């Protein structure tokens, strides 16, 4: 802070400039905020407008108002094109199951790291921290092989016994869920949370003779609700929007998720862009609803992720 002391209270022109800044800073900030807000809203607004216009008008003015107006695209998405509801269902299944499993498993692992003592704890925890820095693309190919055909063709021969080296989950929703049912960031987040959490309640429970598992499921899980919800939202949003792995694992349209399905649909029926726009809003809507309902937690989740290094 030595630099601050050097400043003398009497500064000439600098102070004048500063006065100008003080005067105009709020309008400038408002301009920045409003400008960026318009930029953020514009794509979604145009999407909404054109999704309410007939398919043939996907590139026809007016830009600002849906005339001629039609709900046909939404009807196509919801009823006449049977795959859209399928994709929506698949996305929901993957999102909900992955989120539920991840919240549970991350809480369990976080609790173990924070509260229990076992050999190699420090080593494993550090290994986990290192793995968080690893770029995902490096394990893309082996991951694909393990989920699908296996790393060794025909399995591993062990004294007459053939052990498959892959899960054979290509084109199955389980194949998308499996590798993501727990992740390092979630474990880390829960570990930090349980570390900062008073031990008294658990100790009281243990005094009463409740075992570790009982304590965890009856006491610890319920009181970490807020943190779990934050993790759940973060997970659900990530899974709902995931692209590269489902693209490699899911093969037939009836098993696609909404993002995979939408981009496939564009390849197959590129003249029906208004339908794609309507479908896009369907992909965005659930997250928006969750966002408005749990805004506080969303913002907390982002803030948490930022402070992990600091």
């Amino acid at each position, binding site marked *: 802070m030595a630099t601050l002391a050097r400043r003398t209270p009497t500064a000439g022109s600098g102070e004048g400039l500063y006065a100008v800044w003080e005067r105009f800073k709020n309008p400038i900030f408002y301009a920045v905020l409003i400008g960026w807000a318009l930029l953020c809203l514009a794509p979604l607004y145009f999407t909404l407008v054109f999704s309410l216009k007939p398919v043939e008008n996907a*590139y026809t003015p007016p830009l600002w108002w849906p005339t001629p107006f039609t709900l046909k695209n939404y009807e196509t998405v919801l009823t006449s094109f049977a795959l859209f509801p399928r994709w929506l269902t698949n996305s929901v299944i993957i999102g909900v199951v992955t989120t539920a499993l991840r919240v549970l498993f991350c809480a369990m692992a976080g609790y173990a790291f924070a509260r229990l003592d076992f*050999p*190699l704890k420090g080593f494993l925890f550090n290994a986990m921290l290192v793995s968080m820095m690893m770029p995902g693309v490096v394990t893309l190919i082996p991951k694909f*092989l393990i989920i*699908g*055909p*296996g790393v060794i*063709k*025909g399995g591993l021969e062990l004294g007459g016994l053939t*052990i*498959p*080296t*892959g*899960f*054979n*989950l*290509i*084109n199955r929703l*389980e194949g998308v869920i499996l590798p993501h049912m727990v992740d390092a960031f979630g474990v880390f987040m829960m570990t930090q949370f349980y570390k900062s959490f008073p031990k008294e309640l658990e100790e009281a429970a243990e005094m009463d003779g409740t075992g570790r598992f009982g304590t965890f499921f009856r006491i610890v899980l319920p009181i970490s609700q807020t943190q779990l919800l934050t993790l759940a939202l973060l997970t659900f949003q990530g899974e709902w929007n995931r692209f590269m792995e489902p693209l*490699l694992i*899911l*093969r*037939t*349209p009836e098993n*696609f998720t909404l993002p995979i399905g939408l981009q*496939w649909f564009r390849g197959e029926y*590129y*003249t029906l862009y208004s339908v794609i726009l309507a479908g896009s809003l369907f992909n965005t809507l659930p997250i928006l609803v969750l966002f408005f309902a749990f805004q506080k937690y969303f913002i907390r989740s982002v803030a948490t992720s930022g402070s992990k290094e600091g």
Partner: protein
Amino acid sequence: MKRLYQALSALSLAALVLAACAPAATPTPQVIRETQIVEVPMEVVQTQVVEVEKPAEQTVVRLSGWASSPSETALLESLLYKFSVENPGITVKYEPITGDYKQALLTAIASGTEPDIFYMDIFWWQELAKNEVLLPLDDLMASTGTQKADFIPALIDAFTFDGKVYGIPKDFNSLGLFYNKALFAAAGLAEPTDDWTWDDLKAAAAALTDASDPNKPVYGLGVPADPGRFPIFAFQNGGGIMTDDYSDTVLDGDAAVGGGEFYAAFKADGSGALPSDVGEGWQGTVFGKGQFAMVYEGGWLIPYLRDQFPSTQYGVVLPPAGPGGEGNLIFTVAWGVSANTKNAEAAWKVVDFLTNAASQQQVLESGFALPSRVALKDSDYLKNNPAASAIFRGSLEGARPFFWGAVGSDVNDQMAKALERVYKEGQSVRDAFGEGATQIREAIQSQ
């Protein structure tokens, strides 16, 4: 400490093995389980003896292909139904794949769970033959008296590798010149004929171009940077893309460059355009909308126009000949049989049935693709359908398979990029093709 490490690694290994075993084991027996469930209600009333024997007789053959359209799937299913009536001992399980087919098939082969019979595209099937995952079909063909000579030579030869037949072509397509009758009439031009040449094409494209309506310009010819269209101009100029043994490219030869210069000139003088110039992804759509007066497309455009643009009146003729004569591309798909199949004979029965004369007649009449059997050349259907007939005849006139050897995807990429450089960066065709050829040679080198 050491013991703990060991215990731990044993534990995690056990977990890995356990988890790996459980789901992996399910898919294979699933097939059998399903067929047994079908049999149960019938067997209840039958005697104990039959119940034991019946499943043993029943052979299950799994069959896979991509499903390009619901009606094409329906056609295959109706053929398979007919097969099951004629062959009660064989159950065919159809497993269509609609996503990335090649990737799905390779993954299945890698895990040893591939179907017994599957589609193979001419563009990449040799990769399978080279890696010995296909069953040679010669002996099986002999067993039912099916001969190579029954099929169009260009097609069956394309699925022969090292002197052995590995695939039976199920159907094929070639390119024809589709033209919009209304636009020709409006321009006061005579409609194209099979005898057209490059000069006729050039003159007509210029006369048909009409940019007077900026919102709906009309171009004479669609000239996409598409490696599935351009090569015919190299052929028609007396050249090619690859040497006969696919060990080198001739993209930078005079004939291919000349073909490229002719092709690119349409775009340069404004009488031709790319689909993206009018905001579309495929020129078939632009043709349907009446903004391209002529396009080179295959038989697949016929059902598309019927469904999407029923009011567009069009005709199809053979691609106009160039200085080097006729030239065309053959797109074809064959049935291949897995080398791992446990039911080679049953699998062959299915393939043979799907490609026999009666089935091929049904394929032809459906209008999706053309039959691979020579005998159908003179069928009434082709006489009554001039559009399909033009596509069929295209395969007989200077047509070569759409196949560029082991680096096929690189060759396609480089052709498309060379044309894009000409279109977008104003590079000369000779330089662009020269650069493309260099890249292709590098890809061949690094095989």
